Every structure is written in C-alpha cells, then in structure tokens.
C-alpha cells in the first residue's frame, strides 16, 4: 500500500448518473500514485470520459468522494483544481495564436509578462515547435495542434494532467510518434498523467498501470504485463490482446488448478483464477502465442489432435487457424524459428498443447 503522500488521486466509491436512471459510472474505487502514468481503457460508453470530467471538475459525482493531494475536491470548481487537460479535439482557442494559447493559463495566474514569454518559449521547445509562436491553430497540422494542446496543459506545471483520447484524430504513424513523445514528456517532467483511450495497444505501450473499465466499473487495475499475462476475468482477457476462448463447466477443483469439461466433452486442465463452485460455468482463456505445436517433452498437461484450417504468413511468424476441441476459431501464433523442419499444411492434422499456467479459468460470461 502506498503511503498517503504517495497518492495523488483517489476515487472513493464514486458513482455518477446523468439521467437518474442508469449509472455512467457504477462504483469506482481507484488510487493513483504520484508521477504515475495511469490509463483508463475501455470500450465506448464505458465511462472513461465521465471519470475524467469528474476529476477535472466539469461533472459532479452523484455519490462518493474524489480526493486530490489528500483533500476532497468535490466542492472545488474546475478552475481552482490546477489540473491540466488535453481534449480529444484539442480545443485550442481559434482566435489566439499558438503563443496566446500557451500563455493563457499563465495569464490567468497573473504571471509577469516577461516570465510568460520565457515559459512559453520553453514549452514550445519542449514539444519541438519553436518558431511557431505566431501561427493560428488552423494553420497547423493535426499533430502540431496536439502538441500545442499538450504544451498548453503542461506550461503551468500542474501536478496532474488529464488526456482524453488525445491521439484519436491522428493517423497511425503520427500517433506512434506522439505516443513516444507523450511518454518522453511524462518521464522528463515527472508529472502524473491520467490517459484515456479505447486502443488497447496504445495503453500497453504507454502506461505504468491500466484500469480497464466496462459499463462503469473497473474490471482490473494492473500493470500492462500483468494485465496481458494474468487477466482476472473474461472481459479483460477478451479486451486486451488476442485470446482463444472456451466456455466450459467446472468438474473438479484441486488447489490452484481445476478440471473443466468443454462442450464437446473434452477435459481441460486449467489454472483456477476466478471460478465458481464445481458445476458452474467458466470461461477458459489462452493466448495464441502460448500454444505449442506438436509438444514433445511432456511439458504440456493438455494435448489434443487438431486440424489446420487456414495459414497466414506474417513475416516473422505464422498464424494458423485450427479446429481444436470443437472450436474452429482457435488461433495459434508460431514464430518462424520454432517451426523448424516440420511444416504445417492446410488440412493436415497436428497435435497442439498448452500448460495449466497458460490456460486461465475465468468467470462465466454474463447470461
């Protein structure tokens, strides 16, 4: 548990409803460390923006408490929270120049003119836009506008910066470049960042920790590796990375492992992560890269005959779609090296296997 001074933001049982009938945020408990890069990840409508707006002070929490620097900010208006925010469509003031935009938060804080000039200059250098002072926002490209927006949100040295899908409008190449730059700024400045995205790849690259949101609750809050390797529930397993999925019935549980019967009758040994009692339904999840083709050394507890349905060559690896245990959408990623002498052919029969640890038995799908 981090100490009190180590946490910058806390959500305590926060609920939010816009219409009085449904919850946009159902129940949110979250603690964010100082200097952390925390990502809110979730599908559309899961409540990410709502969380951010409550933190920024544009929406009131219907219930619960939001704490910033150890103090409840429920009744602090937005302009006194000292939180930087980067909006999805940048929201640069169209009638002000780049310089005017970046100077704006300093002007609000009555910083002396000379100092404003210096700090704006530094901020522009930081986002590599020196020399663009006198342009209007509409004279900039999307990526440049975004960098101005970031400079504007950082120039007044807030401890916390919120970014709501800041890269959503950019093309892929620019997005990757900006991901790197945002990361760099975060590391150089030591500022805490709450980052919202629905792109799971982006969240894995950038974050210290990721909170996966779904229907207004946090499904799992963990580091990217943990989230990827050890998803706690079917939603997270499905939402992050690729995933082979079976729905089966728990037959027996012994310690950390369990036996699951698949719909076609096959029995699978799995890691009991998040299952109900014997007889209940469970979702089995395994990553395509953890499946072994023709396992030899008895390392895999689960080995089955399968039929190759499709092969796609990806350069560094091969993706094979197999029929395994009645599932025709079973994907296996085989690194080129691991393939060795043996070759796969469509229609051929191969043996595949996986270990107990790589097969996670998770909660049952919602009825």
């Amino acid at each position, binding site marked *: 548990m981090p100490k009190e001074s180590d946490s910058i933001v806390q959500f305590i049982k926060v609920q939010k409803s816009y219409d009085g009938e449904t919850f946009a945020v159902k129940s949110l408990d979250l603690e964010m460390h100082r200097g952390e890069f925390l990502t809110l990840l979730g599908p559309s409508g899961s409540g990410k923006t709502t969380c951010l707006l409550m933190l920024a002070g544009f929406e009131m929490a219907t219930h619960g408490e939001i704490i910033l620097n150890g103090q409840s900010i429920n009744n602090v208006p937005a*302009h006194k929270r000292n939180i*930087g*925010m980067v909006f999805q469509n940048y*929201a640069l*003031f169209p009638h002000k120049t780049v310089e005017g935009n970046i100077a704006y938060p300093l002007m609000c804080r009555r910083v002396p003119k000379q100092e404003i000039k210096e700090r704006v200059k530094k901020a522009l250098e930081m986002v590599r836009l020196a020399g663009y002072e006198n342009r209007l926002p509409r004279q900039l490209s999307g990526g440049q506008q975004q960098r101005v927006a970031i400079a504007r949100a950082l120039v007044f040295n807030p401890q916390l910066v919120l970014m709501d899908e800041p890269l959503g409008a950019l093309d892929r190449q620019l997005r990757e470049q900006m991901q790197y730059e945002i990361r760099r700024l975060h590391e150089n400045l030591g500022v805490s960042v709450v980052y919202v995205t629905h792109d799971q790849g982006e969240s894995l690259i950038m974050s210290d920790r990721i909170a996966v949101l779904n229907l207004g609750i946090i499904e799992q809050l963990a580091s990217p590796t943990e989230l990827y390797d050890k998803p706690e529930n079917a939603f997270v397993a499905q939402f992050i990375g690729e995933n082979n999925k079976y729905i089966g019935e728990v037959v027996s549980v012994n310690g950390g492992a369990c036996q699951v019967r698949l719909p076609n009758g096959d029995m699978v040994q799995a890691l009991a992560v998040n299952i109900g009692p014997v007889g209940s339904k469970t979702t089995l999840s395994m990553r395509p890269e953890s499946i072994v083709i023709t396992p030899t050394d008895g390392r895999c507890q689960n080995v089955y005959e399968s039929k190759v349905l499709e092969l796609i060559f990806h350069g560094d690896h091969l993706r094979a779609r197999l029929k395994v245990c009645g599932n025709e959408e079973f994907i296996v990623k085989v690194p080129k090296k691991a393939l060795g002498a043996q070759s796969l052919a469509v229609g051929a029969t191969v043996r595949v296997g996986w270990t107990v640890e790589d097969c996670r038995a998770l909660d049952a799908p919602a009825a």
Partner: protein
Amino acid sequence: MAIATAAPPIDVVRTADGTPLKARLRQTERVRNTAAFGLILPLLAFTLVFFFFPIFSMLVQSFENKEIPANFPRAIVALKSWGGQGLPGEDAYAALAYDLKHGYDNKTVPRAAVRLNYEIAQFRSMVLASARKAANLQTGPYKEAMIGIDARWGEREYWAVLKRNSSTVTDHYFLNALDLERNVDQEIVKKAEDRRIYISVLFRTFWISLFVTILCLLLGYPVAYLLATQPARISNLLMIFVLLPFWTSLLVRTVAWVVLLQQQGLLNDLMIALGLIKERVLLVFNRPGLLIAMTHVLLPFMILPIYSVMKGIDPQYMRAAKSLGASPALAFATIYIPLTFPGIGAGVLLVFILAIGYYITPELVGGGGDQMISHFIAIYTSELVNWGQGSALAVILLAAVLALYAIYARFFKLSQI
C-alpha cells in the same frame, strides 16, 4: 528567353474520339455553366431592372443639370467670355433676351425657372415674368431693356448663377446636402447659419442609429446567449418570441408603440399605478419614444446573427479555459466573447445600416426634431419633386452604408474563424 523556347513540344492529350482533352473539358464545363446561369437569369434580370437601374439613375440625377443649359443655350455661350467681375456685356443680354423669348415659345422656361429657384429664392418668379415680357422685345440695346424689365438683371449674383450652371453637371445638390454653397465668386462657402440643415440631420441620424445599435447589442446579446445555451425545448419557445415581430407588419408594430407610449397609454397607466411617476409623461413623438420603438423593431436583427455564431461555438473551449485556470467570468470575457465577434459584427452592421435608413418608425413615433435623413429624402422626392436633391442625400446615405461595410469587411477578415 532561350531556355523557355527550348522546351520540348508537349503532346496534346486527346479523348478517345480524337478531340483534344482540354477543349473537351472546356466544352463540358461551358454546358454546365450555361445551365447554372440559366437558373439565376430571372433574378439577375429582376435586380438589373428594379435595383441596379434605379440606383444608377439616382446617381445620375444627383449631379445632372439639364434644365438650365436646355433653356439658355445662347446666354451660356455668351457668358463664356465673361470673367465674373462686373456685369456681362451687351451680347450676353441679347442672348438672354433671345433665350427667354425662345424658351417662352417652346415652354421650357418654367422648368429652368424652378431649377434656378433652388439657387436663389425668388429667381423663379423673376425668370417667368422676364420671359413673358421679353417675348415682346424687338430690338436692342438689350442691356437696358432687360434691366428695365427687372432691375435684378443688373445684379452680378444672378448672372453668376447662370454661369455656374452652364455645364450639364452640377455639384449644387451635393454642396447643398453638406450645407455648402457657391458664392458670387464661385467659391465654396458655408451657408448662413440659419440655412444649415443637413449636417445636423446627418449627425442626428448617425447618433440615433448608434444609440439604437448599442441598445440592441446590450439587450440582444444575453438573449442570444440564452437561446444558444438552453436545451432545445426552452430555446425553441424563446425563439418564437424573438421571431414573433417578424410575423406582424412593421406599421402595425409601430402604431402599437404609439398606443402604448402615449400620454394616456398603457405604460403611463402602469407607472402611475406603481407610483413611479406622479405626472403623466409624453413618451411618444419625441426622442425616447423613437429610441424605444426602433430598438424593439430592430432587436431581432441583432439577436439572430449573434445567436447563429454562438450556436456554433464548441462548449469545449469554455471547458478548456476553465481547466487552464480561468474563472467562469474570465473565460467568458477572454474566450467566449471574442469567439462571438463575427456575430456581433454582423448584428451591429445590420442594425446600424437598417437604422440609418429608417423611415416609417421615426415618421410615426418621432417628433419634429427626430427626423432622420430618409425623411428628407422622402420629402424631396415625393413632396417637393426635387429629385436631384433627394438623390444627392440618398447617395450620401448609400456612401455611408458602403463605407461602414468596408470597415466591417476590413475588420472581420482577420478574426474570421
């Protein structure tokens, strides 16, 4: 240059049937343009005939000077050699007598006489009488004869008027519209104080319009803001109230104000009942009444353009300003209001231009001292039938409007978003 001529010949790109591609393209474009032109043709013809032509003829009439040269062709020629000092010679008098006689026979004298009367009072009767008498003159010397007919022909002033009108264009109407005139020596001078009218009318028109515009802005801006920010259900209802005046005739609205504002009217009743005033006050046929009525009539023209601009302002900007540390008031002043400048500009321009040309409302609600320039234009064109003077005033009004528009265009090109 040598290099330019050395460029290799370019093969003409051709369509499948062999026509050059460019010609083909032009051809298709021409067909499309002709079709588009056909669509606007009726409107174009309409505006040409009923809008541009009248404006053009108004422009012409404001400096046209036909009547005098038409009636005094010989006198004008004879006056060419007159320096303007002393009296003209015998030949000029002879030409005058001939022109008057001739004009009397051809019945062109009355029109010239009316025109001459614009320059000097009583000139009209003098010329009409002289023409009648000159018709009987048989032989010279004409100088004595003419002075004998009317002693004023022996005064330099009257000859100076004839001389300055020897051309078919005149600056008389414009000078008059600016309270200026030419004296005996043809110098431009200010009119006698008691004969100056139009400068003060122009200023009055300007100040009333400015005041009405400011009132409309102060009253209209908050309404536009409300319209733009309320949920659709409420804003639609509000919008109906804003548009309601448009569904009533301007005349009816103006007369309604007379009813409301008069001494025995509803507003006086109300203020008496509330104990705000003891004596009934006259609120109509004076400046306050005019300002109230004009502001009411012109308010929608301020609200609508501002509203349409406000509607397009992304609420995200205000949020961004607040997140950057601006209090709501500061964010409003530094972000919201500047973003509405195009709407404010359009509204101000529209209301001001409508106001300086206003006629019916000042005519019905204003007093004698509240008449604006259009009142005088109307008087000149329909009552005094002095179209030249009416046109000159109208041209000044038009020039003011165009100048305003130029300033607006200049100003808002920069902040156009």
